[in-house]
């Protein structure tokens, strides 16, 4: 498995690349709902696809649906990146 860590900055970069967003969100977005940040379900589908491609992981769909904030999604990705115990 990869030993890369997935950070909030990585996520925000991928979100911007996938959605075409040009602006940084005001304040700390980690705990803000994606919907409140202006990302709809398609933007998140595009984002998870890009994460899977870049980090070589396969994210569980129902877990993805429950990760409704950047912090939760970063944690989810890192769980998949962690070496199997």
């Amino acid at each position, binding site marked *: 498995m990869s030993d890369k860590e997935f950070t909030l900055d990585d996520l925000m970069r991928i979100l911007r690349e*996938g*959605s*075409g967003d040009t602006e940084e969100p005001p304040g700390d977005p980690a705990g803000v709902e994606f919907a409140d940040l202006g990302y709809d379900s*398609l*933007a998140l*589908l595009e984002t998870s*696809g890009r994460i899977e*491609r870049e980090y070589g992981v396969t994210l569980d769909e129902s877990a993805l649906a429950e990760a409704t904030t950047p912090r939760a999604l970063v944690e989810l990705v890192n769980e998949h990146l962690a070496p199997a115990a």
Partner: protein
Amino acid sequence: MTAIAPRPAEAAPDRGNPGPVVVTGIGVTAPTGLDAARHWAATSDGMPAIGRITRFDPTPYPARLAGQVTGFDPAEHLPGRLLPQTDLMTQLALVAADEALADAGVRPDELPAFDMGVVTASSSGGFEFGQNELRNLWSRGGKYVSAYQSFAWFYAVNSGQISIRHGMRGPSGVVVSDQAGGLDAVAQARRQIRKGTGLVVSGGMDASICPWGWAAQLAAGTLSTCDDPRRAYLPFDAEATGHVPGEGGALLIMEPLEAAEARGAEVYGEIAGYAATFDPPPGTGGEPGLRRAIELALADAGADAGDVDVVFADAAAVPELDRAESAAIGAVFGPHGVPVTAPKTMTGRLCSGAAALDLATALLALRHGVVPPTTGVRPAAEHDLDLVTAARPRPLRAALVLARGNGFNSALLVRAAHDVHAVHSGAH
């Protein structure tokens, strides 16, 4: 009858019969210009915009010319978030809709959401977007296909994106009917307004100048293979050898005349009459349906042939189709009986955008009192047409726009703003 009352701010008021339906805003994204003013300046000056394809290398293809939209940077006009999820045709449609709304003086956020609709025509859908994602699928795998492919390729996406951008949640849809789409969409918009919707964005837009789209267009077998931009698309000329495709189109703001006047909006003209007909089955030898479409559209408008001051031709540039069109025009108006023009000789045929752009051009012609020219054509005597080959200034009361698909016909009469009242008060 009882019903749950919708929120007042969202509800469409009950208007009964709204009377004449008029156009109060025009937006153009076309090879001839990226707004209505530039399009009209180029068109009335007879400045063709056909050239060799630059979007991809056309060398290996039998047809190599197109009317391309040039100098268009979507990022200059649209928010970044719309770019990764839209094909070029949708970007062109969104920009044209913005222009049309601004031209009409309409602020959608001030109007009830369910009182505004969007009815556009598109026949290709987002072809280049789809081409790129299919390439990703087959060369890199399914994980590399954009999530936005789910709608970006779709015919209805222009209506959908305009609806979302401006919060227009009233009756909406898409019409897929080839070159006739622009007229058929506007006719559907008029129906919705007559049924009570206060404002509809309507028109047509297509843009598929990419290898996949080109292969589809070539399959029709009616593209000109001439390499000389001045000689490639010559409707009603003895040298007619098919058409040059183009991209772009126009969007219009339509509303009841009464509403336009109540808010002091400037009116371009009335969507006064419309009809669509089918041709008889191939090989049965019957007369094509275009003449009937013209007669039915005039009847729908309560007009007769003498009321029409200019005809915007479909202009297929396939000899047999040109003959059928000039015969239909001759049967209704008599030989050399009405000025006929085909400004699409400057842009090529824009598929769903073609008739929408002709309609926009016709409305601008009515306003300016100038018939824009057909460029490059030496009219063949057999057609008996008064084909306008140099801009012709003259007062114009009404224009008839013709469009044909493969086996079907549409005709739409627009009446100049200054004539709408005269007609509807019975002065004619």
